[in-house]
């Protein structure tokens, strides 16, 4: 399973890709595989602010529904309309076309505490996944 090296990951299986003060957030390939066929996602409006660890939406497969959690604090600057229209994108391309939201980070926000790809894989192995 592929976990891009330049991304950071959370215990709840979100990924975050930093692009200056803006970051893209999505769901890891591992989580997508666990969920099965994704049929619906719910995302917040642009402009909404979230704390780190706060739920910002839900992801639904045919079998289950899960909350999506913010990896870091920030304000939603863009929502992936294409993914809302076509949730299959998350399965087909979880790291590029299947991103969920872009967030404007608060000043001095650090993502250093999150998993790197190797640590995330190690975490998956250790948690018996």
């Amino acid at each position, binding site marked *: 399973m592929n976990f891009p090296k330049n991304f950071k990951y959370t215990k709840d299986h979100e990924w975050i890709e930093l692009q200056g003060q803006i970051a893209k957030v999505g769901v890891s390939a591992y989580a997508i595989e666990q969920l*099965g*066929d*994704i*049929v*619906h996602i719910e995302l917040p409006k642009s402009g909404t602010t979230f704390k780190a660890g706060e739920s910002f939406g839900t992801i*639904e*497969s*045919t*079998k*289950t*529904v899960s909350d999506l959690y913010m990896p870091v604090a920030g304000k939603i600057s863009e929502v992936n309309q294409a993914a809302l229209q076509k*949730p*299959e994108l998350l399965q087909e391309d979880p790291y590029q076309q299947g991103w969920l939201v872009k967030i404007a980070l608060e000043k001095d926000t650090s993502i250093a505490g999150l998993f790197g790809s190797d640590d995330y894989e190690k975490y998956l192995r250790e948690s018996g996944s």
Partner: protein
Amino acid sequence: MTKNSMVTHESIINNSVPFAKRHIGPTSAEQTHMLKTLAMESMEELIKATIPDSIRSKRPLALAPGLSEPEALARMKELAQRNIVFKSYLGTGYYDCHVPPVIQRNILENPGWYTQYTPYQAEISQGRLEALLNFQTLVSDLTGLPIANASLLDEPTAAAEAMTLCFAHQTEATHQVFWVSHNVHPQTLAVLQTRAEPLGIEVLTIDFAQNTQVTDKLPFGALIQYPGSDGAVIDHSILISELKTKGVMIAVATDLLALTLLKSPGELGADIALGSAQRLGVPLGFGGPHAAFFATKDELKRKIPGRLIGVSKDTTDQPALRMSLQTREQHIRREKATSNICTSQVLLAIMNSMYAIYHGPEGLKNIAKRVHSLTTILAKALTAHSFKLVNDTWFDTISVDLSKSSVSLDLLHTRAEAAEINLRYPSDQSSSQIVGISLDETTTLGHICDLVMVFTGTNEESRAQVQTQINGLVYQPFEYRFSGRLVRMSPYLTHPVFHQHQSETQMLRYIRHLESKDLSLTRSMIPLGSCTMKLNATAELFPISWPEWNGIHPHAPQVQLDGYFELFRELESSLAECTGFDAVSLQPNSGAQGEYAGLLAIRKYHLSRGESHRTVCLIPKSAHGTNPASAVMAGMRVIIVDCDKSGNIDLDDLTAKAKEHKANLAALMITYPSTHGVFEDHVRAICDHIHDNGGLVYMDGANLNAQVGLCRPGEFGPDVCHLNLHKTFCIPHGGGGPGMGPIAVKKHLAPFLPGHPLAEPWEKWPSESLGTVSGAPWGSASILPISMMYIWMMGGPGLTQATQVAILNANYIAHRLHPHYPVLYRGASGRVAHECIIDLRPLKAKTGVEVEDVAKRLMDYGFHAPTVSFPVVGTLMIEPTESESLKELDRFCEAMISIRQEIAEIEQGTFDKVNNVLKHAPHTQQLVVASSWDRPYSREKAAFPLEWVKTTKFWPSVSRIDSAYGDRNLVCTCPHLTSYEGI
């Protein structure tokens, strides 16, 4: 004469086969054989090894020995005849109708339709799924809203679901207030008030006609009844649009028959429409079971409660139906669900849909016009005699104000009683003099004549004069008695299905055609764990067709109901005897609603002791999804308790959490035997621990079939439990309803049991009643004779034997399958209770075969799968019940073992991990006989994997269904044929 000294007349005369032998599958010889297989000397040894001593009951059931079928039927008839069936004009959401005989015999009285469970295995349920899609289309067309579900329990609970949907959906910061029109049915208001209180919602009754000014306390939603409970047909479109601009959501409670003439709620701007579909071909039944309907706008489709049938496609791109968007439901969302609805009213919804198909849009409209016409004639006749009507608009109901008349309420009452007529009188507490009269499909001109005679005090000799007056009215021109703006112009039921089956021959064939696509108990066992798919004996079902049970309005006066009250008394005391509790309420009309009622009783108990802070509800991780959903509805905070490796409640975790929440502990919800199918040793200690910390114990009675006659929950700790009469006590599952979920409680909870504002019981309703949970005072009363018949015919010893054999059958299956699949979770001595769980997870890693594949492959063998992935993902839970014979158990085991060999072939590399007989299951006839065949296995292996399958073959009508496709492209009404081309 030859004399045989050994045989007396007595022994010959009394040598009839006891009913228990008909109900219980394995013969005594077979039972002995099965016990031997389990290395058990006797049944008692098996039971001793299964049920911990600490919970075994010390005394046998104090119930009479079983009656024979003719004896029980005679007794039931005698009871039935103690009900007096008056002609009902009581209305309030319940209207008499003609059940078309072709539907009565071939659906209501046909085990090919009433014995199935909820259509979880869609490939072998296409018949009822199509019938339910027709129901959804009927509802969607008539309400003018695109998304309709496959039924809810009754109109009042549907209204409560509308309220909580609006509550959950509110976007603007509004008050926690819900407006209810003063003209809703009183039972709806009662249920709304009960459901609102624990959630902190305030229900305000408003006269919209008087008070259209929006007050400062803006509600999040409002409910309007259209036509009103008193009969008025008012155009609410301006009010609706005013409220909607302020962000208030609008729900309209309505009547499908009226909507054939009236502008739809959707056209009036409503967000939600709901109501009872009963009058479309389902008997009054003293209040139920009936299907409620619920429809919404497209934007609310992910919030709609209940089952939603949708169109998808199978692997061959053929259209195929299944339950869609299941992630909305309690079994997925658990404590985050906004509704606990599970079972609904499938059988009744199917009857409604068939009624609409049989009559077609024109036929329905004619029935509606006829009712409307007769109402107008009655109104004119009464006004001609100087009676004053409250409203000048109506569909089928008029309200007569006697305060301005020379006839007193008492006099009218006396005359009506003499004519065996029930009218809707004002309640005893009210000073109102208004009498309601609702007409229906069964009303004739003769009945109009009777009514006018009652009002005018005309005696029989002068009948001709009244007839002459009515005849004069009959020849006046027909006109709608409501605003021209409300006359329906939009079409409905345009789909071909509502036009093609209007001869009885066509109807019969359509019903049979659909029936043949469904696997029911008439074909093979349905070993669904936690569902108890036992025999629904024909003799048990007979009484539900008798007019003395099903022809009675739920608000009929007490004096006419001697038979019903005697039935309730005896059923309640029998259920109390079986469970060891002190009092029973028959009101909850589903298991989930029983849970809700039980928790409300607990809530009321704490409130009565001044402990309103006790709101924490502990629930084991393995609980059924309805448990946490019900707890939240009852205003409780859910704390999850872990389970240990053997499926039992983790005692350490429970102790820690009970201690942590000691100050606020309200309740523990447990299932016994556990959802893992095990009699936990520590249940007594668990209950004591909760009691010591100030909480009460709620027991989910889903698994009561493992206890009746052997142990009584009331003796080992729980304070309240619900009973699924549709599991343990033989009410058929109806393909997904009706159910019945009465609750049984200890003395200290009895004062809090449900009550009802409109009916009087034989005694009084409980003093500190929790309120009203169902629309009808005794829930789905007309199916209670089924459980009573079962108890009478089995008797105490028969019921006990049934439980023993249920446990024997489950242990036999566990024993036979264990060499092939690991059996998870056993009790201390290695025994399972009345069901067993087999684990398929280890196979997935090696072969790619998932539990779903095994479930689908079982269809090729002619079996319905056991419960899939509950309570443990990746497992099957098998509950054979006592009714399955040894031969049937062996057939099922052979099928499972044969499937294990097919999996082994993948393990050994004979077959590919993706292209194999399991991944492609189920196989349709079309596929198997097609001229081309490109599978790596033979056609014979696909369709006839074992010799006996050749003689018992059941063909799934579609192949594996693509769930994702259907969830991504929701279609929940009948697609016109052209739209299938896109698939």
